[in-house]
C-alpha cells in the first residue's frame, strides 16, 4: 500500500514520459502475481458504471484496487490507427482508420448491452501511440483489451483473432516485469479470450478460422490485460457496404465472446504485488 502511494505521488509530479518509466516498474506486473486462472462458472452480473469515459494516459498511474477488483467489468476498445495514419487503404478509398471507428460504435453498444463498461482509446480522429493506448488498459482493474483492425488481405467477409506470440521474460530480482513485456503474464488468458471470440466469429462469417492465431502484434505486447486483435477482411472489397454489413455480426461476436470469457477471468489480490 505504502509503495503504491509513493508511486502515485511521484507520478503526479512527473511528465508522462518519466511516469511511464515508473509505471514500467510499478503497474504491470500486477496481475502476474495475482492472476489465478480458474475455470469457474460464476454467473453473477456486475454493476455497470455508466459514467465511464475514456481514460487519459496520465490516469494510467491510478491503478488502485477497487471493490470490484478480481472481476471482469471493463472492456478497453481500441479502434486502430487514426489521424494521418489511415492504416490499410483500399482502391475504392476505404480507410482502415475510419472503418474501425464505425465498427467500434456497434461493438461498444453490444458490449454495453452485455453489462460491460467500455473505455475507448480514441473517440475521434486522434492517433494515440501504441504505449498510450496500452496505458488506457493498464490503468484499469478487471479489464480486457480488444483492438479492431481491417486488413488489406484475406478472404473478404472473414474475421480473424490474433493473440501476441510468446514473450520471453527473464527472471528479475525485483520480481517485476518491464513495460515492454506487459502482455507476458496474460498470454494464457488472452488465448482463452481469443478462442472464445474467434469461435463466435466463425459461426457468423464462413471461411473464418476456428481458433485464434498467434502474431507479433505490436499493440498487444505492452498491454497488461487479456488482449486480442480482431482483424476483418478487407479494405479491398469492391463495395464498402460489404464491410458495413459485417459490423453487427462482428460486434455481437465480440460481446458474446467477452461475456463467455468473464467467468474465466478471476483476479485476486492487489495490483503490483506478486504472491
Amino acid at each position: 500500500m505504502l509503495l503504491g502511494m509513493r508511486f502515485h505521488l511521484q507520478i503526479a509530479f512527473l511528465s508522462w514520459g518519466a511516469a511511464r518509466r515508473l509505471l514500467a516498474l510499478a503497474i504491470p506486473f500486477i496481475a502476474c502475481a495475482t492472476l489465478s486462472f480458474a475455470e469457474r462458472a460464476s454467473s453473477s452480473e456486475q454493476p455497470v458504471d455508466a459514467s465511464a469515459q475514456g481514460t487519459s494516459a496520465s490516469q494510467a498511474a491510478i491503478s488502485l484496487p477497487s471493490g470490484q477488483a478480481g472481476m471482469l467489468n471493463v472492456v478497453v476498445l481500441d479502434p486502430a490507427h487514426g489521424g494521418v495514419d489511415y492504416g490499410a487503404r483500399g482502391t475504392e478509398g476505404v480507410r482502415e482508420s475510419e472503418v474501425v471507428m464505425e465498427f467500434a460504435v456497434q461493438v461498444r453498444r453490444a458490449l454495453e448491452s452485455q453489462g460491460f463498461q467500455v473505455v475507448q482509446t480514441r473517440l475521434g480522429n486522434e492517433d494515440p501511440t501504441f504505449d498510450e493506448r496500452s496505458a488506457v488498459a493498464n490503468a484499469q482493474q478487471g479489464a480486457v483489451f480488444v483492438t479492431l483492425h481491417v486488413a488489406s488481405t484475406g478472404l473478404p467477409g472473414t474475421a480473424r483473432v490474433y493473440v501476441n506470440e510468446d514473450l520471453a521474460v527473464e527472471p528479475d530480482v525485483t520480481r517485476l516485469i518491464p513495460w515492454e513485456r506487459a502482455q507476458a503474464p496474460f498470454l494464457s488468458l488472452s488465448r482463452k479470450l481469443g478462442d472464445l471470440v474467434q469461435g463466435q466469429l466463425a459461426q457468423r462469417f464462413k471461411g473464418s478460422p476456428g481458433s485464434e492465431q498467434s502474431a507479433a502484434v505490436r499493440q498487444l505486447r505492452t498491454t497488461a490485460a487479456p488482449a486480442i486483435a480482431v482483424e476483418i477482411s478487407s479494405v479491398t472489397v469492391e463495395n464498402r457496404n460489404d464491410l458495413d454489413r459485417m459490423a453487427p455480426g462482428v460486434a455481437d461476436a465480440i460481446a458474446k465472446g467477452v461475456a463467455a470469457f468473464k467467468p474465466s477471468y478471476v483476479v485476486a489480490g492487489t495490483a503490483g504485488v506478486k504472491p
Partner: protein
Amino acid sequence: MSPNWRTRLIIGLAFVVGAAAIYLPALRRHVKRTAKLVQQTEEQARRELTQALSPTPTGPRVKTKLFWASGTEGPRLAAVTVELPLADDPVLRAKQVLNTLLAGPVDSDLRTLPPDAALLEFYLLPDGTGIADFSEALGTSIPSGIDSEQLAVDSITRTLEANVPQVQRLKILIHGQEVDTLAGHLDLTETFVVNTKPASAPAVKPAKAG
C-alpha cells in the same frame, strides 16, 4: 531602321529560334539524365556495393525450399523447391535465398514481399541471431495489416529455417534502423524464432544432373 538591317535582324532571330529548337530538346534530355543519376539513392548504391561483394557461387546446384503464398484456403504458405548454387557460408547462403525469395515466384500473385524491396545486408552473430537489413520498400510497399505483415515475416523465417540452419532467430532492420512495426502492425522490435534446434552444418544435397 533600314530595310537591310530589318532583314538581317529577322534572319538573326530565325537562326536563334532554329538553334534553340535543336538545342533545347537535347538540353532537356541531358537534365533528365542528370536528375535520374541524382535520384540514385544511397540505398541503391549500397545495394550495388553489397551485391558486388557477394560473388555468386558456382558450386553444385542444390534443392532449395522457398516459402511463398500458397494461394489456397489451407496453409497460407507453400514450399516451392528450386535449384540454386548455394554457398556453404551461412551469410552468403542467407543472402542468396532471401534475394531469390524477394525476386518472387513465377505467379506474381503468390508474392509475399513487395517487388521493389531489397535485401541490403545480412549479418550472423555468434549466438545464431541473424540480422536482415531490408530497404524501406519492405515496409512502405507491403499491404498494411496483421495478416499480410505476418505472412511476409513467416515467408522469410521459414525460408531461412529450411536453408540456413545456423540462423536460430532473426532480427529485421529497415535501412539499418530498428523500427517499431513493419507496416503499422507487426512488431519488429523483437526477434523472430527461426530454428529451435541447435545449429549444424547445412545438409547440402546436390541436385541430380539432368
